[in-house]
């Protein structure tokens, strides 16, 4: 029963996580706007989202086993971020930095809005569930 409620929310839950990762990458690009030889990075959102939805398990929590009777650590359910890629260069600069501040600001705002959209969707789903449970 709880599993079904979980499954209903999982799409936007994954979306929030990937959006969070992307926000972090763009923040790093903005932070490194003046770092020589820094190359701007971004996620392929479609691939990352597909990766997240397919539940690719990464072995993030492997405990050291000193006896065969020890049990494995729980696999973390957090999917791998789906590899960041370098942004194509629009205007190169002399110091080898490829951060274009206009692009980054634009993508940053876009990503933040979409993140909030996912939150609104989740809230809507929760409301629907509540209405179904209460039957009023």
């Amino acid at each position, binding site marked *: 029963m709880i599993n079904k409620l979980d499954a209903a929310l999982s799409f936007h839950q994954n979306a929030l996580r990937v959006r969070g990762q992307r926000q972090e990458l763009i*923040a790093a690009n*903005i932070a490194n*706007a*003046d*770092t020589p030889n820094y190359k701007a*990075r971004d996620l392929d959102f479609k691939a990352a989202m597909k990766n997240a939805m397919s539940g690719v398990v990464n072995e993030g929590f492997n405990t050291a086993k000193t006896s065969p009777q020890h049990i494995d650590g729980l696999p973390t359910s957090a999917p791998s*971020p789906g590899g960041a890629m370098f942004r194509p260069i629009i205007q190169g600069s002399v110091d080898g930095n490829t951060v274009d501040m206009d692009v980054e600001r634009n993508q940053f705002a876009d990503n933040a809005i979409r993140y909030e959209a996912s939150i609104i969707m989740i*809230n809507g789903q*929760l409301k629907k569930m509540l209405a179904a449970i209460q039957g009023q």
Partner: protein
Amino acid sequence: MSLFNVFNISGSAMSAQSQRLNTVASNLANADSATSANGTPYKAKQVVFSAIPSKSPDANGVKVTKVVEDKSPPKIIYDPKHPMADQKGYVTMPNVNVTEEMVNMISASRAYQNNVDTMNAAKTMLMKTLTIGQS
């Protein structure tokens, strides 16, 4: 939680930019210092930024790895009345390029503001996340 890491990244960039602003202030303040503690004219200082790894693999913070002295030649002016003038009346002045430093200052302060904005946006997103399921 990756959004919390935005604070670390933007914070590192803010401290790096403020260090850059500090060297600009030092350079501008000493633009006319014909002598310094070691008896030679002041040399302009420049910071060197480099990307440092953060908690997550692809997102890098910023750090000032070193402060280098500007290699450009000192300005030589003719002023026989100056106490530091040599026999021919020339004074060696610091190699601070005031125009360049002003540009550097504006660039540093804009970059700082950008990072403040980034941090605020991440904070708003996290606050919105906290309201999931309320109302």
